[in-house]
């Protein structure tokens, strides 16, 4: 009996806090995406002609570890029985990736970069929760940032 009560309490806490965290996180993601939308990401390995000389480049990265909540884990467990879309994990991974990109962009902006080339993602499940299900995931985004060109004297 007490086991069931503990379970229900955890589920309620997980649902309440988890949803609240998720909503406030999405709000902050959307705000910062608006702020940083001028910092362009170009997904190419070949350096476009306007950036081909006079630029300084450096590696930037952003990473975040996000944990699932009890409710999500429970719903995902149920989904394992019937199959189909696991929406709770979809939003979790989406948040992690977008947050990683934002942190990378923030690092680039702090150094004064104008554009980031060749961004790569890397995901990894870090902490195994109950019954070895996914407890938390790490998202990493990295790319090469370009500082604005220093024009040489006499050059246009």
């Amino acid at each position: 009996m007490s086991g069931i009560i503990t379970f229900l309490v955890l589920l309620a806490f997980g649902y309440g806090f988890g949803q609240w965290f998720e909503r406030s996180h999405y709000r902050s993601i959307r705000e910062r995406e608006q702020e940083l939308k001028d910092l362009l990401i170009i997904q190419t390995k070949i350096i476009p002609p306007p950036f081909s000389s006079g630029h300084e480049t450096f590696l930037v990265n952003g990473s975040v570890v996000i944990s699932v909540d009890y409710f999500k884990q429970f719903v995902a467990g149920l989904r394992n029985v019937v199959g189909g879309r696991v929406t709770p994990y979809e939003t979790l991974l989406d948040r992690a990736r977008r947050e990683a990109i934002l942190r990378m962009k923030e690092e680039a902006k702090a150094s004064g970069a104008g554009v980031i080339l060749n961004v790569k993602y890397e995901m990894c499940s870090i902490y195994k929760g109950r019954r070895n299900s996914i407890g938390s995931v790490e998202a990493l985004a990295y790319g090469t940032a370009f500082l604005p060109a220093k024009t040489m004297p006499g050059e246009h």
Partner: protein
Amino acid sequence: MMISNLELIPGKRISKHLGLVQGSTVRSKHVGRDFMAGLKNIFGGELKGYTELLQDAREEAVARMVEQASSIGANAVLNVRFSTSSITSGAAELFAYGSAVVME
């Protein structure tokens, strides 16, 4: 030492390829952090401790890669890739690798 995940650096020419360089580190988290992670698994949200831990570890992996590159006389590492794998539930390996070159 220039590090880039592109295949070349603008305005520079590769004069010599020196082969693959790599750096890795395996990190484990301590009990306190594990306890916090257990709690967070109920409530959800970011695990700041882990984010910092992995970021530190990744910097170390890059530092080892750079050390190897400079020991063979390179001045840049191109086409750098990162890779993370969780070995057991308590530890993760951070790995960085790239191509060491001499640039003019």
